[in-house]
């Protein structure tokens, strides 16, 4: 789980953070404006490709994606 958190955090920083914003596992990503709602699809796609899972669209909500911790919790639900 710790490894997954680091992977997800690193990806978010690489793809969505343009300045020196400090990111923790609990930093609000969607509600904090770091990842906007239109970009969520690409983050969902990354998680699905990386962990070979399929997240139903109705589960990929702004709330479920709002922090690294929440994202990992969602991914865990769909890992085989």
């Amino acid at each position: 789980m710790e490894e997954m958190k680091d992977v997800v955090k690193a990806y978010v920083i690489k793809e969505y953070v343009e300045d020196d914003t400090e990111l923790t596992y609990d930093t609000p990503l969607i509600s904090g404006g770091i990842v906007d709602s239109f970009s969520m699809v690409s983050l969902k796609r990354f998680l699905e490709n990386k962990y070979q899972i399929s997240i139903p669209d109705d589960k990929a909500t702004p709330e479920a994606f709002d922090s690294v911790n929440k994202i990992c919790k969602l991914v865990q639900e769909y890992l085989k």
Partner: protein
Amino acid sequence: MPYLKHLIIVDADPAKPLLDREVAFDMDKAPKIEKFEIHPTLAESPSVLHYTSGTTGQPKGVKHVHYSLISQYLTAKWVLDLLDTDVYWCTADPGWVTGTSYGIIGAFSNGVTQCVLDAGFSADNWYRFIEKHKISMWYSAPTAIRSLMKAGEEVIKKYDLSSLRHLASVGEPLNSEAVIWSERVFGKPFLDTYWQTETGSMMITNYPGMKIKPGSMGKPFPGITATVIHPETYEPFNETGKIGLIAIKPGWPSMMRTYWRNEETYKKKFQNGWYLPGDRSSIDKEGYFWFVGRDDDVINTGGHLVSPFEVESALLEHPAVAESAVVAKPDFVNMEVVKAFVTLKPGFVASKDLDLEIMNFVRKKLSPLAMPQEIEFIDNLPKTRSGKIMRRILHAKEWGEEIGDTSTLEND
């Protein structure tokens, strides 16, 4: 067809008997005549009935008159820069308005030497043709240019294309990537020219001597008054940078006179004293027009307008993408979101990783709003026989609507 008197069969097969009203014509065997009595036409005499390619619905018969020659002669002379020393190649089939306006009327009235290639497309065929005939002025279309880009640059090295002096493009907005590519491989950019069947000749265009901004339509041709107006009030904007409907002051010589037997639809093309081509663009501070999309094609996602052309141009800059078509896809939250249909260049294979890579590429190049929420890899985009992408077919499929008229669909 009770009014049809003669059906002229060129190169008729002598073994097959002619049917009623058929007349065989053989150019080599026909008697030569020294004097040909020209029918005394007037400026307003009907000249051509063009059926539009139907990118947004069933084709309409666009009626043009002899006066259109003035516009076609002048634009061919000044934009295509036709010289006595040129060998001109307009790649458009004469069945398409470009092939008539600039393959026949504009070319003949300027007395230029020109070539016609009656063969299927291949990069080798085209480059060989240019080399053989020392083509100097080349007027082509974005779909063909993108096909040449897809064919790669190795094939270009096999041919001597040094005769090329001037290049121009028509039919769809020309992506900036294509302009930059042609400048690099041919030494000169394709100049984008904007017009339509209904206008009969170029309206907004890039022309020799002006600074070229890759991706821009250019500026109104001298004598043409064009602007961008508000889609609801039909009033011109007072400031630059606003997206609105392209509007042209009526009365130029090659303006269509009507839609054949469809006067009602014809009248709808005019609002508040302006002719509306049905496209949206913006104008920058230097007066350059920037195409956004067909009125019907512009995507409204979460209240924000997204230009399909802009997204398609960005997609084209990805090394794997050969062509793309961007349409609106229904979405419960945003009403519409961006969906991209993509064909890949040789050597690239569709995959989930490529899908994500392209999404992120567009997101960073443009914005999260413009990022396709879905990418579908396909072998071929639906196109008309004149090579224009038929976004309405893709749109209709996304929305579960009737596809409508497909009589102009290539390979129907």
